[in-house]
């Protein structure tokens, strides 16, 4: 099993099969991320292709001291940011304060009702979670997807976004509570 850095080196030496292995390895994680960011499968597939084309074109700029996966997802992130900018949705900056989270209680009073996911069938739960995810701002959704669907560590996410780990943890927490709130509202 070749590691990512070997595959990058071999690709730069002209080995097409090495790049094919990179595509095989990362196509599904990238589609899972981009699909949740843009919400349309066909567009997500096109974007995923574009990420690989951009990756190949800029592979010579990759520095092995960084993790390849974080470098790759940075390219994907830039592509989705461009997409949101073109759609003129001004919701991508992580610096802005989320007003709707400012009034959240630090300690919640739990109800004795079944939990937000207990009431539904599996298929319905999945649909509801996907819908709830689509409703939160893209900047928070991105971090949530990386953390809980792509299963990146907080350190890796911090490296991709170039932000402190504490900030990332806090934003992921906000994302989770917003998703939960959306799930509750739909019940």
């Amino acid at each position, binding site marked *: 099993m070749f590691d990512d850095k070997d595959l990058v080196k071999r690709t730069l030496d002209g080995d097409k099969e090495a790049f094919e292995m990179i595509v095989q390895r990362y196509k599904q994680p990238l589609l899972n991320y981009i699909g949740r960011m843009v919400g349309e499968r066909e567009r997500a597939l096109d974007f995923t292709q574009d990420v*690989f084309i951009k990756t190949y074109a800029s592979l010579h700029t990759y520095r092995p001291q960084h993790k390849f996966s974080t470098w790759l997802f940075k390219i994907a992130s830039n592509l989705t940011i461009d997409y949101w900018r073109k759609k003129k949705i001004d919701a991508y900056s992580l610096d802005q304060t989320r007003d709707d989270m400012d009034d959240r209680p630090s*300690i919640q*009073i739990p*109800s004795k009702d079944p939990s937000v996911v207990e009431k539904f069938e599996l298929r319905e739960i999945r649909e509801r979670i996907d819908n709830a995810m689509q409703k939160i701002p893209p900047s928070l959704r991105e971090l949530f997807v990386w953390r809980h*669907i792509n299963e990146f560590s907080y350190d890796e996410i911090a490296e991709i976004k170039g932000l402190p780990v504490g900030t990332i*943890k806090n934003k992921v927490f906000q994302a*989770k509570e917003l998703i939960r709130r959306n799930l509750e509202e739909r019940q």
Partner: protein
Amino acid sequence: MSCLSVEEIYLYLEDELSAEERTSIEKHLSACESCTILLEDRKGMMQAVQDLPPLDMPADFTEQVMAKVFPRRSPVKIWIAGLATAFSLMMFIFLAIFLQSDLSFSSTFVSLNSSLWAFVKNLSVFTIKLIKIVSVIFGILIQFLSFVVKTLGSLATLIRPEFQIFLILLTIILSLSALYMMRRKIWTGDKI
């Protein structure tokens, strides 16, 4: 210990706390029913998120990407590029020889012109001969076909009309079957 914040519950679920913090939280959870309900609620939601299925990936996605990253050049383009390279190389060699020799431009062009004229003359003679051969073959073919038609005409007087119809139908069916079997080869050039 006071009740847990939701943030602490998430960090506990993600195993992002120190051993000491975990122990303290577990101790609290064993004694606090409301925090345990809060924990179970978030745990259920996070489990459902982690169980989300991957998005559908087309089977030929990798091939599509590879075709875009490494586009194949068409054979025609490769031929054109090869011919252009060969022509450039020939011109370069010719120029090098010309510069090394004492030949003048005018004498070189006159000799080139006469060579080209001789080539065109020979090609014209060859084309005329080829046309003559083709016309002879065509004449023989017409004679052969008229012989076949005459033979069939004389046979028709000997065979009963019902048998003639049967033979014509059989010929049509066999021809159509042969055409059907050859259709892919005829239309696409593929092997059957």
